[in-house]
């Protein structure tokens, strides 16, 4: 089944959000942690420990998440730290995404989308 079709049964705003911004399991993990602990402000190393993922992979994902507006980056005495954005609309969308993922059908669709995205990324070399 094509990815486009796979996501079409989801709320269009959410489907667009997933297509545009969720292309790795690490991003999903980071959003889960930060959404459940919304005032977290921490370094890439500590966030990597919190999700139990390699720090180099987490850093790459954090950079993309900042670029996509999913996270904010602040410098504390030159050290980069990450947090959820202050923007209420983005926070609500993240919450909506994670809430939707509690449904197995949606979760399967998101997993499929991520796997397809990773195939594309690997193909791009």
């Amino acid at each position, binding site marked *: 089944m094509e990815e486009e079709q796979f996501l079409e049964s989801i709320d269009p705003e959410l489907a667009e959000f997933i297509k545009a911004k969720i292309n790795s399991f690490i991003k999903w993990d980071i959003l889960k942690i930060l959404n*459940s602990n919304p005032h977290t402000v921490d370094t890439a190393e500590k966030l990597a420990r919190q999700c139990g993922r390699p720090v180099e992979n987490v850093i790459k994902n954090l950079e993309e998440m900042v670029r996509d507006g999913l996270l904010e980056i602040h410098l*504390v005495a030159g050290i980069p730290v990450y947090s959820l954005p202050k923007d209420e609309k983005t926070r609500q969308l993240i919450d909506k995404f994670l809430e939707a993922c509690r449904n197995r059908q949606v979760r399967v669709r998101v997993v499929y989308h991520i796997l397809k995205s990773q195939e594309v990324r690997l193909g791009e070399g």
Partner: protein
Amino acid sequence: MERVKTGIPGLDEMLSGGFYPGSVNLVEGAPGTGKSTLGMQFIYNGIVKFGEPGLLITFEEFPEQYYRDAENFGWDFRRLEKEGLLKVIMTSPEILKLDLERVSGMVEQAVLERGVKRIVVDSITHFEQLASYPTELRNLEYSFINALKRLELTAILTRESPTLLGGEMGAYPLSYMVDSYILLRYVEIDSRIYKAILVLKFRGSDHAKDIRRLEITSNGIEVLERFEGREGLMSGTPRRMAESFVEAFIRK
């Protein structure tokens, strides 16, 4: 002098009314003795009983664990956060230290914008990772304490005790720098474990000198009566007074 009440039954009486405003207070204990609960209760009571917004800083436990634990005591931390009266922040010790040092950091902003008066740092033990030498740690903690005082926050710093029962009560450098030092301990009496609380130090104030029983109930911590007729409580395995009297004066 004005006091900052903890609102914890029995504890304010041990502290002759509560902590001093803008003081930094150390609570040390083994896992499960009630350090984090004491901190959460101090923050919760501050908000709902005394109208003082609070900050809870965690370095290791996820905030969602505090939300869950607080809920078990009937304290709705999520609601208090939504109302802007509480923030449970997870961060790293080095970030908190640097944040406190800079102008308009997240803690300073919370003080200025939300009127935060109380802070709990759970736990200060993590600062030990930042220093290679004892003198470096002491300087770091000294600077951290002064930053909290500059913001006029009444603070509780928790510290993990390395031993479960008793253990050596060494002079940990931070205990010299803080305004008060509260110890939580496990005590074994007649094959049962009890929790004990002792106010070891309270700079510039009278305080209870006895060791009292502490219980964690469905409403949070309650400080109960003193342990009667025992000695050596802080060793974890106290003896009846009579036995020691016999040992000391009769068997000799």
